[in-house]
């Protein structure tokens, strides 16, 4: 018979207080700039009390509440679903709300705006091009009979059909992949891993009939061929999307390996 022993009240409270309740102080360095006013980037430093669970976003909001409310940062959901809070954290693109200070193993945390995006102010960057490239990929199911009528039936899809594109549908348009992409750094017209992965997401969906349209759009001098498989996009994606693989699979259609 299994014996389950309940910890004595004294043991339980002791261990919790020691590991969870500890407060540390870290230095948060925030890159401040305002290009429209001609203000170049400079760092502001703040001492922030943090606990084991404090996220980088919470540390930035602590600054806004207690030291300097003018820090510009975009955020909304605080749970890695809205895609607003992407930034460079100690040099790597990541979501501020999904990165705990404790996992950075450093007493100095530096936050900067994402690379490869125009800066609006401080940590907030301009998403115009990302959203417009996303729209260009026609991110919706294209088919003649998609109007719902009384005769309509659901479009049947097997779990295997779903598996083909499921991971790519988890994209939250945070732009981290585009900020990590070396082609994006010099080719301002490149569609980027985010858009290309979305093109694949719909092309690989067996309910969709817009394959030829989308392939024509990505087959451009600043389209799919400008990926040189650095793979950094897939390394930084917080949602487990693998844009680098999507690009190669999409290329398969254009090279005639896939139908």
């Amino acid at each position, binding site marked *: 018979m299994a014996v389950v022993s309940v910890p004595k009240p004294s043991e339980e409270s002791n261990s919790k207080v020691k590991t969870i309740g500890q407060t540390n102080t870290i230095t948060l360095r925030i890159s401040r700039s305002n290009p429209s006013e001609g203000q170049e980037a400079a760092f502001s430093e703040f001492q922030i009390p943090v606990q084991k669970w404090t996220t980088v976003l919470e540390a930035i909001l602590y600054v806004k509440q207690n030291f300097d409310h003018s820090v510009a940062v975009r955020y909304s959901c605080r749970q890695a679903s809205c895609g607003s809070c992407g930034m460079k954290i100690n040099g790597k693109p990541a979501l501020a709300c999904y990165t705990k200070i404790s996992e950075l193993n450093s007493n100095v945390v530096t936050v900067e705006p994402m690379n490869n995006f125009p800066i609006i102010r401080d940590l907030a960057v301009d998403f115009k091009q990302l959203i417009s490239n996303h729209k260009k990929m026609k991110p919706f199911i294209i088919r003649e009979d998609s109007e719902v009528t009384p005769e309509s039936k659901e479009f049947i899809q097997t779990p295997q059909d779903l598996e083909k594109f499921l991971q790519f549908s988890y994209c939250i348009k945070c732009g981290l992949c585009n900020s990590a992409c070396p082609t994006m750094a010099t*080719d301002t*017209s*490149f569609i980027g891993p985010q858009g290309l992965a979305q093109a694949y997401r719909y092309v690989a969906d067996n309910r969709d009939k817009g394959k030829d349209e989308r392939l024509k759009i990505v*087959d451009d*001098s*600043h389209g799919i*061929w400008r990926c040189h498989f650095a793979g950094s996009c897939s390394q930084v994606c917080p949602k487990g999307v693998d844009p680098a693989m999507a690009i190669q699979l999409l290329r398969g259609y254009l090279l005639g390996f896939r139908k």
Partner: protein
Amino acid sequence: MRESIIMKIHYGTALGAVALVAVHILMRMSQKFSDSLQYQNVIANYHFLPYALMLEVLLVLLSVHGFNGLRVILLELKQGSTYEKMINYGSLAAMAILIAYGSRTILMAGMGVS
């Protein structure tokens, strides 16, 4: 031309070049390397028609591949419609010039003019 067609040519020329460069190296290895560079041997190569033709094909493959590669690098470096047009036509011209100059050498050596 569609970019996918250009890139098929790019990959195709690369594969073709691997095969032909292999033959080219094997031919060098059929004798001592220093001998292969003797004047008479070099001229003999050009007089051997199949090999001279192969060198001509290799010249075309590598000119097309190399200058298209350079075109890609330059398109990624800077954008703008005039600039991009210049790069596209410029690389075509560069391919043509290199092929013409190389063919001239192959032809002259093959016909014994030197």
